[in-house]
C-alpha cells in the first residue's frame, strides 16, 4: 500500500469522524435526541428499583406512584417545574455551545431572584403592566451580573470558568440568606426567614385555571425560539459554534473571542436569572429559603441531554420536571429525595455511555469499511510499514 493510498484511507476515516461531531452523532438527530433520554430514564428507573429493593422498600409501588403522580395526576406541576428548567437550560446551552462550562446557573438563578425581589418589595404600588416588564428586565439583569465575573475572568486571564462560576453559586446562596434573615425579613412573618408577600400586581398571572402554570411558560417558549434563531440563523451563533469546535481556528478566522466569551456568559446568566425571576414571582410570591431544588444543576443535564437543541430542551425539561416534582412524591411515601439527585446522575451516565459506545461503533465501522476497500486488515498494513 503506497503512502498515497494510506493517506487517502486515513482521510476517509477522518472524514467519517469529522462528519459526526460528538453532539450530532445520530443519523436522525431530532428523533434520537428525544428517544435517548427517554430510554435512559427507563434504565435509570430500573437502577432506582434495584436501589429501593436493596434498601427494603416496595420499589414497584413507589416507582409507579412517582410516574403516575408526575405524568398523569399532577402533570401541571411537572410543567410548572419545567418552566425554570427550560429557561436555565437554554442559558447554559448557549455557553456550552462555545464549550464554555458555565455551571453557575444556580447562582445566576438567584441573581435574577434577588433583583426581581428587590423590585417587587421596593415598588409595591406599581400596576402589573409596569412592574412585570420591570421585573423581567431585572431578572435578566441580575442573572447577567452573576454571569459577568466568570465570563470576564475567563476571557481576560483564562481563569477556569467551572470553578469561578460554581464558587459564585455558594456566594449567591449566602447572599440570599443574608437578605431573608436580615434586611428583607418580613416583620409579620413570625420570625420565619421569608420576605413579605409580593403585591398581586407583582405576581405572574396564572395561565391555566386550577393549576400553578404561569406566564413563565410563555417566557420559556419565546426564549427557546429566540435562542434557536440566535444559534442557527445569526453570525454570532455560528461564531459560538466555531469557538466550541476549535478555539484556535476561531482565533485565526478573526472571531473576537474575548468579546464573545463575555457575551455568552452574560446571555447565559440572563436566561438563568429570568428562570429565577419567574419562579419567585410566578410560584412562591415571596423570597424564601430553598427556592430552587437545584434547578441550575439539573439545567446542565437537560442542556447536555438535549444536545443543546433549544426545542429538545423543552421536551427534556418536561421529563426532568417530572423527576424534580417526584421529589415531593418520594417524601410522601417515605423515601429520601436524595434519590432524585441520584437518578439524575444515573440518567446522565446512561446517555453519555450510550452515546460514546455508539460513536465507538461508528468509528470501528468506518475503520472496517475503509479496510475492506483496500482488502487489507490493519495488521497486514502494520507489517508492511515496518
Amino acid at each position, binding site marked *: *500500500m503506497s503512502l498515497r493510498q*494510506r493517506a487517502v*484511507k486515513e482521510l476517509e476515516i477522518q472524514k467519517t469522524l469529522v462528519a459526526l461531531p*460528538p453532539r450530532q452523532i445520530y443519523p436522525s438527530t431530532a428523533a434520537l435526541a428525544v428517544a435517548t433520554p427517554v430510554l435512559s430514564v427507563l434504565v435509570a428507573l430500573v437502577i432506582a428499583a434495584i*436501589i429501593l429493593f436493596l*434498601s427494603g422498600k416496595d420499589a414497584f409501588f413507589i416507582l409507579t406512584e412517582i410516574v403516575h403522580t408526575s405524568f398523569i395526576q399532577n402533570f401541571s406541576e411537572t410543567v410548572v417545574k419545567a418552566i425554570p428548567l427550560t429557561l436555565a437550560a437554554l442559558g447554559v446551552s448557549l455557553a456550552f455551545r462555545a464549550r464554555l462550562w458555565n*455551571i453557575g446557573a444556580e447562582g445566576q438563578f438567584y441573581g435574577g431572584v434577588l433583583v426581581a425581589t428587590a423590585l417587587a418589595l421596593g415598588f409595591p404600588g406599581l400596576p402589573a403592566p409596569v412592574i412585570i416588564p420591570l421585573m423581567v428586565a431585572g431578572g435578566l439583569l441580575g442573572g447577567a451580573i452573576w454571569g459577568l*465575573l466568570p465570563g470576564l*475572568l475567563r476571557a*481576560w*486571564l*483564562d*481563569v*477556569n470558568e*467551572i*470553578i*469561578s462560576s*460554581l*464558587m*459564585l453559586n*455558594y*456566594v449567591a446562596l*449566602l*447572599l440570599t*440568606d*443574608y437578605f431573608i*434573615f*436580615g434586611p428583607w425579613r418580613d416583620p409579620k412573618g413570625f420570625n420565619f426567614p421569608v420576605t413579605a408577600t409580593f403585591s398581586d400586581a407583582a405576581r405572574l398571572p396564572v395561565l391555566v385555571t386550577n393549576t400553578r402554570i404561569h406566564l413563565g411558560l410563555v417566557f420559556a417558549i419565546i426564549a427557546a425560539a429566540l435562542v434557536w434563531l440566535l444559534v442557527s440563523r445569526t453570525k454570532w451563533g455560528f461564531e459560538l459554534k466555531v469557538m466550541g469546535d476549535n478555539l484556535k481556528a476561531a482565533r485565526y478566522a478573526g472571531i473576537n473571542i474575548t468579546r464573545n466569551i463575555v457575551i455568552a456568559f452574560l446571555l447565559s446568566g440572563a436566561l438563568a436569572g429570568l428562570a429565577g425571576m419567574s419562579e419567585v414571582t410566578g410560584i412562591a410570591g415571596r423570597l424564601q429559603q430553598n427556592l430552587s431544588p437545584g434547578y441550575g*444543576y439539573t439545567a*446542565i*443535564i437537560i442542556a*447536555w441531554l438535549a444536545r443543546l437543541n433549544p426545542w429538545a430542551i423543552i421536551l427534556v425539561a418536561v421529563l426532568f420536571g417530572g423527576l424534580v416534582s417526584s421529589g415531593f412524591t418520594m417524601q410522601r411515601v417515605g*423515601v*429520601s*429525595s*436524595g*434519590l*432524585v*439527585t*441520584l*437518578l*439524575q*446522575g*444515573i440518567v*446522565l*451516565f446512561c446517555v*453519555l*455511555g450510550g*452515546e*460514546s*459506545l455508539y*460513536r*465507538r461503533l461508528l468509528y470501528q465501522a468506518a*475503520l472496517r469499511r475503509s*479496510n475492506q476497500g483496500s482488502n*487489507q486488515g*490493519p495488521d497486514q*498494513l*502494520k507489517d508492511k*510499514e515496518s
Partner: protein
Amino acid sequence: MADIDVVKTLASAVVAGTPVLYATLGEILTERSGVLNLGLEGMMLVGGMAGFAATAATGNVFIGVAVSLIAGAALALVHAFFTVSIGVNQVVSGLSLTLVGTGIASYFGKPLVGQAAKDSFQTLPIPLLSDIPVIGPILFTQNLFVYFSFLLVPALFYFIYRTRPGLNLRAVGESPSTADAQGISVIGTRYLYTLLGGALVGMGGASISLGSNPNWQENITAGRGWIAVGLVIFALWNPWRAFVGAYLFGGMEAFQFSLQVAGVPISSYFLRMLPYLLTIAALVFTQWRLKDQTGRASSAAPSGLGLFYLRRERG
C-alpha cells in the same frame, strides 16, 4: 480584632485545611495521569458517609477510614470506566459523578443525619513536639488525619518527581501517545491513578465526618470538593503547593469563624462567602502570574488533561 486567639485560629486552620488537602492531593494524582475528575464533591460526600456508616456499624474508626477509601475509589472507577475506556467527555462525566455521589450520600445517609460518630480520630498531642511554643499547639496537637497528611505531601512529591512510576505517570498525562510508544500502559496508568486519587478524596470526606466534625449532616462538605478542584490549579499540580493552598483555604475558614466569634459587625453571611471568594482570587492570582511569565493567558495543566486517548490503528 484583639479578641482573636491567633494560635487557636491557626490550629483550626490546619483542621479545616486537611480535608481539602486530601481532596487536592487525590485530584493532583488523577489529573497528572490526564484524567480530569470533577466529581470530587460527590466522592468526598460518599467517602464521608460510607466511613461514618461503617464506623457506626463496627465501632472502629480504622474500618471506617478503610471503607471511605474504598468508597471513593469505587466512585472513581465509574468515572474511569466512562472517560478512559469509552471516551465520555470528562467534564460531563465528572458532573454526573457529583450528582450520583451527592444523591448516594443523601439517600443512604438519611438515617445517619444528626448522629454523632461512634468512634473518631481524637486530638492526639505528639509528646515533646506538642510542647514547643506556638508550633506545638498548631501542628502537633491534632488528629491522625492531620499527621498522616504531613507524611503524604512529601511522599507524593517524591513519588511524582523522583521515581520511575512517577515519571511514567507524568508522561501519560503530558503525552499519552509518547508514553504508549514507550510501552507504558496509558489505560492501566489512568485507571490506577484515578482510583488512587478517588480513594484519597474519599478519605478527605472521612477526615470531616470522622475527624474535624464527627457527626453526620447532609452536604457536610459545603463545596470543599469544588474548592479542591480549584486548588489543584492554584497548586500547579504540585503537592507542596497544594499544602499551601489547602492551608490558605483552611486559614480563611478559621479566620472568618474567629471573626464571627469575636463579634465583628459584619454579617456572618458575608464572612462565610470569604473562602469561596478566596478560591476565585487564588485562581486569578495563578493565571495572572502565568500571564506575567509567559506573556499570554495559558495554563500549567498536563497537556493531555481532559483528552480521551484512543490508540488509533495506523494503516
